[in-house]
């Protein structure tokens, strides 16, 4: 990775003669590979990923244990006529609710976030900077504080919004709108103003500029943020936990939490978690390849696409 040539330890004759024998000891290669660091990194990766692999494995356990392997089966997914994800109405409802929240939130939050991005990019003065401030703030504000705020908004102020799917969706939109706002804004900065100016100079109206110049240019960023919003809704816990009202609007994360906490754990929960995991990975893969396809012809590489899809 680093260029060597110039930096190899120079065999300077004067020091060699002056230090005599001590110089004959082999000097360590300054550009040697840091095996210790690499080993540490692999240990970290094993620690971070192997437990999840085991949890996925136990979702196929042919028994009620989450910790002792009793053979492979599909019973917790669909084979068991009572307790499988396919047949247990509560488990089934949790999957449906998560997907529903993901779709609703993405469909509303992404256009809204794109509008914010355009606004932050174009407005001058305090509105733009305040908006920007709020968007970045939402990455560090504890989700619990935000969830408590939303809980009170829907139970004390806008009481016509009952706790449940509507409240959850509104909370999730507000929480996730920063993804498209930040990512699309970054893209706007990268593409600059010249395309838009050219369109305006050539006589395009505002809406034409928007539809035929800006939206196609922004498409990769919009798509990447949609992927991020959808997957973070799937994984969200705090907001949906504070704003759910009954079994009918309990998403997967809340179901896993309440069952495991209540001592009703079992491989069915692992199956639910595995379904979440597969959903997220499929979305990530689709997002990655679609992003690569959309930005073909631009000077971008795989790592850039990967970072965008992960939101870093």
């Amino acid at each position: 990775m680093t260029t060597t040539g110039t930096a190899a330890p120079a065999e300077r004759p004067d020091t060699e003669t002056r230090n005599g024998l001590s110089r004959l000891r082999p000097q360590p290669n300054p550009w040697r590979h840091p095996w210790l660091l690499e080993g540490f990194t692999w240990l970290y990766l094993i620690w971070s990923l192997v437990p999840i692999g085991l949890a996925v494995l136990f979702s196929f356990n042919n028994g009620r244990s989450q910790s002792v392997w009793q053979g492979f089966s599909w019973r917790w997914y669909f084979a068991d006529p009572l307790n499988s994800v396919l047949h247990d109405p509560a488990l089934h409802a949790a999957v449906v609710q998560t997907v529903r929240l993901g779709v609703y939130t993405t469909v509303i939050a992404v256009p809204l976030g794109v509008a914010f991005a355009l606004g932050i990019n174009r407005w001058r003065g305090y509105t733009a900077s305040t908006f920007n401030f709020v968007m970045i703030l939402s990455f560090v504000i504890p989700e619990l504080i935000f969830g408590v705020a939303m809980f009170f908004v829907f139970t004390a102020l806008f009481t016509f919004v009952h706790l449940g799917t509507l409240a959850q969706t509104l909370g999730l939109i507000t929480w996730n709108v920063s993804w498209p706002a930040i990512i699309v804004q970054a893209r706007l900065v990268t593409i600059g103003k010249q395309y838009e100016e050219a369109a305006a100079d050539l006589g395009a109206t505002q809406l034409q500029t928007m539809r035929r110049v800006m939206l196609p240019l922004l498409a990769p960023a919009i798509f990447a943020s949609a992927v991020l919003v959808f997957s973070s809704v799937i994984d969200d816990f705090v907001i949906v936990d504070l704003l759910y009202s009954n079994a009918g609007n309990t998403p997967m994360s809340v179901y896993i939490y309440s069952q495991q906490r209540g001592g009703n754990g079992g491989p069915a929960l692992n199956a639910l978690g595995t379904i979440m995991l597969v959903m997220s990975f499929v979305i990530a893969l689709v997002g990655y390849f679609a992003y690569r396809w959309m930005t073909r012809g631009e000077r971008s590489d795989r790592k850039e696409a990967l970072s965008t899809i992960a939101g870093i």
Partner: protein
Amino acid sequence: MSARGGALRRRASEGAAQAVLGGPGGARHLWLALLFIVPFYAILAIAAGHVNQVFGYPVAVWNPLQWSAANFTAAWRDVAGSTAFVGPIIVRTIVYVAVASLLCLLIAYPAAYFVARFSGRRKGLFLVLLIAPFWISYMMRMLAWIDLLQTGGYLNRALTFLHLVSQPVNWLGGLPATVVLGLVYGYIPYLILVLYAGLDRIDPALIEAGRDLGLGRVRTFVRVTLPLSRQPIMTGMLITALPMLGDYFTNQLLSGTTGTTMLGNVIDDQLSTPGLQGEGAVFALLLLLALVVPMVYYVLATNRSSREAA
């Protein structure tokens, strides 16, 4: 740029933004209010409101002139007064979060440093593996450790097999170490990505210059790389520590006993207890106030680094 071009540009871009937001200047303020001001004013109105004596639901008081201190005095009584039980919980929360954040940094920095500097052509692979936990639900990741740490789980079986312990350890029975490790495991992916992004941005020429000028590997790191990564360390620590302070689910899942209760649990419990919701609002508000300075620091630092990158 001609004057005409400038005017056109301004018209086109402002028009586009407004066409999407669907309205003149007022609309943007409305969104800002709905997004940000109203939710947090709602916490304040509940915290400074009173509690319905019969049914125990909180009554929001929107007019500042009619605010009462009842919920605040109740909260103060619980923190330091006659019924003080929150005081020790606050101390515990701070200790847990401090230890967990420090462990996160000690683990994340070397890994991020290796991937950013030395992974070479395998960088894509390492990056995928570092990002993977980011895409896996928090609940699934906690479930993974619940499976491993059970009394009959693989960890206990490995430890008894190696004769490191004679009896299986009840890891999930309220051990602070389990909760802290759960927090580390839960939040480290965010830190590692921030650190990676920051370290990857360091110009390798600076590090090579340090080496060319005769510094050893360790001293190059201490004198060049470490000072250049101060910013990502600060923002990365904030992005893990601040959410940890509002965490209530990790210790519920990995311990569930009162011995490891954190501030987030107090707020969560009060929110679901009739009559105590006002007090829960007070604690949420106090947590928010305590975090204002670090949060503002984070936003300013992020803004600065994105300006530098642009």
